[in-house]
């Protein structure tokens, strides 16, 4: 990690601390063990989605379909369990369906040579529509107790959803930093032509990247469904914006070649803290969207500045 990256990481941490101090001063409820745990629980879904998105953006791609995959796989999990499949097979059916939905995105990008933006925009519509068709736009609720524990249970002082997020984050960190697949994925993001010339299977790598993003979206859907005890077709609408903001804020570049899982964790916690703090100081939710939109644009500008310097801002 070079000095600029260290500075950015420290800057992120500083921003998170400053945000915390601001809300601690403006709301008496912010600094409490219960609320801080609450921030982690609320951020768990974003952290899981962010892990997959870090891999995707690190490969110079984008996945707009994660919200729709989250919704459709939640419906599949809930529907499977309601149909008598059992909790563990139900969870696996959701993760596998998310993996396959992501793989379809990957095939469109790698083999049909359609841009990631277009493919995932198209499949967003398809997956969301399928979720609505399967449920007749009605929510599925009343899920098994064991399943609900994923979202509401605790192991000692730590919520299970936070443990799930930490495990997924650690898995993706290992994958990106220590494995052949991770090195290949970063090479594809940095310079796909170079990766191809060096014998890296670029197509297969891309398909696997999007499949893993889909699987992480499905897992995020499972955590969300378990917490709310409801699966619905409109779940996760617009969550891709927050996820991309968390990843870019964390130092993963839109230009590919770098994937910073640790930064994504900080980015997700900043967004979680902002959402929690703004609610505590009674700012309406539509203003929260405005703040997150602004933070997103600032993160992208900071990324461009970091990569290209001031010349990027002159015309």
């Amino acid at each position, binding site marked *: 990690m070079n000095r600029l990256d260290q500075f950015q990481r420290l800057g992120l941490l500083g921003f998170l601390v400053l945000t915390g101090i601001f809300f601690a001063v403006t709301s008496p409820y912010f600094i409490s063990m219960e609320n801080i745990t609450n921030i982690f629980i609320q951020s768990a879904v974003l952290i899981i989605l962010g892990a997959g998105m870090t891999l995707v953006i690190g490969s110079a791609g984008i996945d707009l379909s994660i919200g729709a995959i989250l919704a459709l796989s939640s419906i599949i999990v809930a529907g499977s369990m309601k149909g008598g499949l059992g909790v563990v097979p139900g969870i696996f059916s959701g993760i596998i369906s998310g993996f396959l939905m992501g793989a379809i995105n990957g095939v469109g990008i790698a083999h049909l040579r359609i841009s990631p933006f277009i493919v995932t925009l198209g499949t967003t519509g398809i997956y969301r529509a399928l979720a609505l068709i399967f449920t007749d736009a009605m929510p599925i609720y009343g899920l098994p107790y064991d399943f609900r524990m994923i979202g509401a249970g605790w192991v000692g002082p730590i919520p299970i959803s936070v443990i799930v997020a930490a495990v997924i984050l650690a898995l993706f960190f290992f994958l990106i930093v*220590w494995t052949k697949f991770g*090195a290949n994925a*970063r*090479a594809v993001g940095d310079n796909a032509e*170079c990766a191809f010339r060096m014998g890296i299977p670029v197509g297969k790598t891309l398909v696997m990247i999007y499949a893993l993003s889909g699987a992480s979206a499905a897992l995020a859907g499972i955590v969300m469904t378990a917490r709310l005890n409801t699966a619905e077709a409109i779940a996760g609408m617009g969550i891709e914006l927050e996820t991309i903001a968390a990843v870019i804020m964390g130092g993963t570049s839109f230009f*590919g070649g770098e994937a910073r899982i640790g930064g994504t964790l900080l980015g997700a916690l900043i967004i979680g803290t902002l959402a929690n703090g703004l609610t505590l100081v009674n700012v309406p939710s539509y203003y929260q969207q405005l703040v997150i939109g602004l933070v997103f644009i600032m993160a992208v500008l900071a990324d461009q500045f970091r990569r290209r310097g001031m010349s990027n801002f002159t015309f």
Partner: protein
Amino acid sequence: MVRMENISKRYGRKMALDRACLDLNEGEVLGLVGDNGAGKTTILKILSGVEQMDGGDIFIQDEKARISSPAVSRELGIEMVYQDLALCRNMTIWENIYLGRYLFRSFRRWPLPMLDKKRMARGAAQVLETIGIDIADTNQPIKNLSGGEQQAVAISRCVLFAPRIVLLDEPTASMAQWEKDKIHDTLIRLKSQGRSIIVVAHDLGEIFHVSDRITVLKEGTTVWSGPVRDIGPKDVAQLMFVGKL
């Protein structure tokens, strides 16, 4: 070692190679020259598996070869240094040198192979040292290096895996003279180890300095091929631009 017969390649309406022929003997340096667009890089890309030929035959050690991808080319013992260097700018020096051919370490109780970063960093430093380029920290990203250093990394990647056939497309284009001398020394060492080398360069002085034989291409066709002693730089220039002596 390598025989290419009647190789054709078309890009849309443009005929990049029109029944071009090339012979590369074991342990020799072949200088491949021609004007811009003569087809030099296309021949190298076909040998490296990046491009597929439309017609013709390739023989490697008298056996017909089908080079369908860069991975196949590497398996046949062919390595190429590309004109654009083919480096990942955000990745470290050692990651670039070992790209696609990583070293792994395994632990007794851990089932998954993990990248052996220390061994790769050490190996990268050693191979850079053998070609005489001193870069202290192989953990720095490629984007931090000068043009000449980047070229040295690309050549190191090619040398490290002891290929039988080395293809060099403008290997010293952005190098200072002292760096060029080191690369020329590396070529001589590779040749003495029995490796076969094809060099593409615009600088005829360099071609005559390092090559045993020369092949001249004109508009995708081989117009002359023979030992360096049989021809002079002026004649080669005439062949490149006029196509005949």
